[in-house]
């Protein structure tokens, strides 16, 4: 359809106004872009500065002779004569083996993830695929509110309530231990894994479900065999985020783990994690002492660890996505 009488848009008043408006729109667009780039830049610079600061304070472990007589890398990681692996930074003969702390951190984190991921992913799959709109309106906010509870409150709950329940259920010697801490941590991990995987399930296109149902698959088969694989990159990303949260979370483990630096395989021994150690000890440590630098070394280690977990996680998510979309 053509009409010869139509004026070219620049010539009408509306056209001119529109052009002017578009011009200012372009300006705000550019301004917004600059602003966003600026923010991203500031965030990256802050990240680098934090790392530089922590790294600088950790460096004496490698460079300062005085610090190294008490705490060099060997003393941190290798078994010491007569004492083995011991974390006793404040004693006549300080010992700085970080292996019990590493074990404690890993135990709590793994228990938390193993406990939280199946629960959260199943709940997310249920809300996205089976729940009635009404149930969804209840479940989703309820779990998301869990994310907003301050971790000190969660920790308090674990310390006062959960620990007692678990102890009487399993007959443990120590009320506060790796499992209590892990389950407490999972309360912080579940909302993250739930929210991110629920998004992943909901964004699986409806036409995949239609295709499956039209072949005579049940809703359950569709959810399990089509929606779950289709959302796998998002679910993996959710797990990585949950893992990062678990490894860095401090308050809950500080309150629910017992804080004894025990090196063992047992899930019912008390533990002491990296994050709780830093939180408990950095306030009272003598500045510049070997203990002080070891705590910063632990901080730097935690920083690098989470950084690499996120990096591998992202790489893996990308690979899954590529495999799913296929080719190039």
């Amino acid at each position: 359809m053509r009409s010869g009488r139509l004026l070219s848009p620049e010539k009408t008043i509306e056209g001119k106004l529109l052009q002017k408006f578009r011009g200012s729109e372009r300006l705000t667009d550019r301004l917004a872009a600059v602003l966003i780039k600026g923010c991203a830049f500031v965030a990256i610079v802050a990240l680098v500065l934090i790392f530089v600061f922590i790294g600088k304070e950790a460096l004496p472990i490698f460079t300062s002779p005085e610090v190294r007589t008490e705490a060099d890398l060997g003393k941190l990681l290798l078994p010491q004569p007569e004492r083995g692996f011991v974390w006793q930074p404040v004693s006549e003969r300080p010992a700085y083996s970080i292996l019990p702390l590493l074990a404690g951190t890993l135990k709590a984190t793994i228990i938390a993830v193993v406990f939280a991921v199946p629960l959260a992913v199943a709940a997310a799959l249920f809300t996205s695929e089976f729940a009635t709109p009404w149930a969804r309106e209840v479940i989703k906010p309820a779990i998301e509110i869990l994310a907003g509870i301050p971790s000190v409150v969660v920790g308090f709950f674990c310390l006062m309530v959960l620990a007692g329940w678990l102890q009487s259920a399993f007959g443990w010697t120590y009320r506060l231990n790796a499992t209590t801490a892990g389950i407490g941590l999972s309360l912080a991990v579940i909302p993250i894994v739930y929210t991110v995987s629920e998004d992943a399930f909901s964004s699986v296109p409806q036409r995949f479900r239609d295709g499956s149902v039209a072949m005579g698959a049940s809703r359950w088969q569709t959810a399990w065999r089509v929606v779950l694989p289709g959302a796998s990159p998002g679910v993996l990303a959710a797990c990585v985020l949950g893992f990062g949260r678990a490894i860095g979370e401090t308050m809950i483990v500080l309150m629910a783990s017992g804080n004894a630096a025990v090196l063992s395989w047992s899930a019912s021994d008390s533990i002491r994690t990296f994050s709780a150690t830093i939180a408990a000890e950095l306030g009272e440590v003598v500045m510049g002492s070997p203990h002080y630098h070891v705590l910063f070394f632990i901080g730097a280690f935690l920083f690098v660890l989470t950084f690499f977990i996120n990096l591998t996680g992202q790489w893996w998510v990308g690979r899954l996505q590529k495999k799913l979309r296929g080719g190039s």
Partner: protein
Amino acid sequence: MRDIKGVTPKLETRALDLFYGHFHALKQVSVSIRPRAITAIIGPSGCGKSTLLRVFNRMNDTIPGVRLSGEVLLDGQSIYSRNTDIQRLRKKVGMVFQRPNPFPLSVFENVAYGPKIHRLANSGDLHEQVEASLKQTGLWDDLKGRLNASALSLSPEQQQRLCISRLLAVEPEVLLMDEPCSALDPIATAQIEELLMQLKTQYTIAIVTHNMQQAARISDETAYMLLGELVEVGQTNAVFTRPRDPRTEQYISGRFG
């Protein structure tokens, strides 16, 4: 209504009414679909072609607020009775969608999906079944080396063929196709049409199409719908050359230009 002498219809609706909430989408539709033939359903956008197609495998059941009255028969048996097994119905009456929708799985897993959920094959036979289904749609030679590649990496035409293979793997009796070529270029369309001509020797096919030439080329019967009514149905040749209803004539002459 045209008599189909001596042939029992594969699918049949009698005085079918369908409502989306208060919207009357199908009005007193009575149509028979001949076995082992291609029936084309044509008509302007929004006249209820897809809705009618979805009636035959009860895909409308997934839409909230749909009401339906009248009879729908498969091999003379009602498919809307109380004891209809919907999953078995959908295994018999499969559907190909407008937009190719292979699952986000490998080529192999896509074709193996139906046999797995319906437990049609043990794992030894599964491979043969996948191979046979891919051969039926002419995909085998192209894809035999890429069975583990993601189905989403295929070209649109290959994806649509894969969706047909995936259906054939559950040994259906009826193929419902909702504008299966509308996302494809002319060459790919011609190839799919050729495939349908082969498949009609074994399957009953009902195809919705926007493309008049396509209906004329491939179908044995044509049904013309308008505003939820079935205006005319008959042998394709007859409908296109000697339409009985003036509305059909108008549509066809308009569309052929």
